[in-house]
């Protein structure tokens, strides 16, 4: 078949070893405590690559760190300032084993950080990256990317995309960098035949039937657009929200940040950007302690409206990618799945 290839599973590690020579390699690794996280690989032989579990983190922090120094400043005399931007070295990076949700999230962040104003810090980290995706044959317990329509399989946005067919991966490319890899390391790739493509389609069909979360995201989005969300839903969820910000921090598409200056010496300091969350009251509080958002009554409203209404109006797609991480992390039980269900009139 044209443009579809087969990579034997036995040859995955040897291929990664080749790719690692030119690239910083980031992949889901299981650590000593059994947690799977996207981690930069130092030594390929001493790590446990884990493609069976969902990584607990997304790729967000690799492009948009939780905290970063935008620039440092010095004012040795009272009337002069000198600014310095520390540009970190960025070797070409390859992200391996990226699920469709996380891939979609990166594509979403690309828009956020380049559409209206180009964000040099994000773009600097984002350039020279290769995304090697992995379709999801078996969605995880809290996944609902079928409802957000960016999974469990994806057919654009990646450099290379793998589908697990048992003893082998079916490999596709969407961008020239991916094509380049296949050309450069052609000894690893064989042309796929019709059976392989059929097997991929079968895997896709089966994956679609394996979601345990059943949410009607479209209906919730419509109710939001029509302003039909009962007042009690906002109140009920807002009162439970424990204000930890975990949902926003773990979310692969939450990109709000705050900026502050920190003095590091008598005549020097740094400007820092760090993640923020719209559920915090400090996010909207103004001078004189006036706050247009009553946290106990409407604290979580902005979060769900942004994801399911405002971005829908702008780009005709939600900015929730259905990864389900916020469902896992929420202390209070105010996650987006519960919101969608309550909005659709279902009992939680």
């Amino acid at each position, binding site marked *: 078949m044209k443009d579809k290839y087969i990579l034997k599973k036995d040859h995955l590690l040897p291929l990664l070893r080749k790719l690692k020579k030119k690239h910083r390699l980031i992949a889901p690794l299981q650590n000593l*405590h*059994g947690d799977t996280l996207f981690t930069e690989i130092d030594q390929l032989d001493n790590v446990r690559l884990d493609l069976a579990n969902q990584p607990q983190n997304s790729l967000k922090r690799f492009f948009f760190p939780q905290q970063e120094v935008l620039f440092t400043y010095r004012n040795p005399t009272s009337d002069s300032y000198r600014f310095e931007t520390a540009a970190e070295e960025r070797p070409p990076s390859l992200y391996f084993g990226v699920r469709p949700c996380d891939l979609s999230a990166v594509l979403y962040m690309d828009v956020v950080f380049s559409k209206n104003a180009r964000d040099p810090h994000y773009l600097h980290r984002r350039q020279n990256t290769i995304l090697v995706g992995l379709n999801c044959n078996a969605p995880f317990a809290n996944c609902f990317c079928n409802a957000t329509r960016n999974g469990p399989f994806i057919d654009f946005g990646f450099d290379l995309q793998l589908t697990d067919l048992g003893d082998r991966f079916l490999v596709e490319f969407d961008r020239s960098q991916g094509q380049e890899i296949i050309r450069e390391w052609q000894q690893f790739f064989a042309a796929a035949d019709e059976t392989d493509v059929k097997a991929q389609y079968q895997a896709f069909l089966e994956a679609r039937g394996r979601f345990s979360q059943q949410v009607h995201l479209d209906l919730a989005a419509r109710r939001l657009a029509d302003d039909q969300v009962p007042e009690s839903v906002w109140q009920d969820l807002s*009162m*439970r929200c*424990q*204000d*930890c*910000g975990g949902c926003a921090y773990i979310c692969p598409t939450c990109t709000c940040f*705050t900026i*502050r200056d*920190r003095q590091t010496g008598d005549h020097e300091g740094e400007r820092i950007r*760090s993640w*923020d969350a719209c559920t*915090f*009251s*400090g996010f909207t509080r103004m001078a*004189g*302690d006036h706050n247009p958002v009553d946290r*106990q009554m409407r604290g979580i409203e902005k979060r769900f409206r942004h994801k399911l209404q405002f971005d829908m109006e702008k780009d005709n797609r939600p900015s929730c990618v259905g990864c389900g991480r916020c469902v896992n992390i929420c*202390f*209070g*039980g105010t996650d987006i799945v519960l919101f969608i269900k309550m909005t659709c009139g279902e009992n*939680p």
Partner: protein
Amino acid sequence: MAGLATTFGSGAMTNSINEIENAQVMLVIGSNTSEAHPQVARRIFAAMDRGARLIVVDPRRTLMAKRADIHLALRPGTDIPLLNAMMRIILDDNLADDLFIEMRTENFYGLRDMLFRIDLDETARITGVELAGIRAAARLYGRAQKAVICYCLGITQHVCGTGNVQAIANLAMLTGNVEKEDTGVDPLRGQNNVQGACDMGALPNVFPSYQQVDIDDFREKFERAWHVPLPSQPGLTLMEMTHGGKDGPLKAMFIMGENPMLSDPVIARVRETLDNLEFLLVADIFLTETAARAHVVLPAASFAEKTGTFTNSERRVQMVRRVIPPLGQSRTDADIIMELSGRLGYAMDYESPAEIMEEIAMLAPIYGGMQHDRLENSWGLQWPCWDRSHPGTPFLHKYYFTRGKGRFVPAEYKPPDELPDDDYPFLLITGRIYHQYHTGTMTRRSAQLCREAGEALLQLHPEDGRRLGVRSGDLVRMRSRRGEVQVKAQLTDAVQAGEVYTTFHFSEMPINLLTSSARDHFSQCPEYKICAVHLAKV
């Protein structure tokens, strides 16, 4: 501790936290749960989703109170009359659990006789709560098959703290609401490991696992293990140590991870005490207000830099693992203690925290089966866990109370030590807020948390604000018989008229300059919750 020890025989949460989800009625008293114990509040809300009813007893209208089916806004310090009245109503309505009382408790008649002397109208007058409300709460709690009482520092930080706890225990035993799953009495601990500190004998009168120092068998057991003679008399309580003043009983102190210069009442007295020591040694992760007064400060390692265990409210012992090596010159607490001990002539050479845990398991029976290998890769074990085959104990007092039979200890009303008068007309309550932790040693270093709540606010009722000419944001001068601070006012009807509320997290506004050192006779816990203050606009 003292209250539950005398009634049940064990001073800890009788339930597991997740059992609260299955309760039918929850009585939350003296606990601002959603701010101070959000993980517990979450279970309470989950129980309400399943139809459970919530009773909140709190002078303030907290978020919990707003969500409650019944909120009894009592006058601070009147918990005992309120609880006694509930018990009297339960007796009158024939809702007491006679079988449970007969089989599992003693001294019921002592309680009953006291309850029959109660004048309910008098109770309504003392507590400021209408009798109808108390009656509704009593009937709701008394009728429940599975009821849980959660209490916190609003109960214990009073001169009658032990009595408060005994009254709670009486109420639970009277209705048979203990000794079962999803049913019990749950003191919520204020810190991640305060239960563990108590378990390990960081109390004046016990060795690890609550083995009294003045009982020869226990003492000899530890002497055999440690090869040194050990004192047979209980040591000093916290307040005796930090409030001794110039002629205090101590010449030297070693303070670890505690900041009494902000957290203890009557700070002026603490300062006097510490400054008169011949030697003060402080180990902490930052230079706290207390460390700043020390002769020697040892930099300690944070949670992320050490391996060991923490024991939480529900008696669960969980492992914490080192993620990064100690930064700079800092050392772990265990390292510091071992090094100090060695230099003082007593070698402690434990090769790892696991070896220390092995010794704990040998000497502390309730930790008997808790070695690191059993705690790794799990959510931990709940004590008592007697041996390596024991699965841990989700709820206490199954079959019988720890002390044998539960004992009714009648508690009678003891008014607060210092009530408002003409000179100091307001009643000050102190407490905590969500975004700051204790003296802010860690949380005040987070810009994000400080943006959420970066300064102390004094909650003041709008009526009082009007009378004083104070608006939200105005500075108020607040003084008590012991000290004075300035604090920004926040008008809110969450507090009742005549009462004000603020927090102790902020060193710029050390509220404990004002609080009183009056304390409970048994537990020696100071009455942080009540003192009289005078307010004036700055």
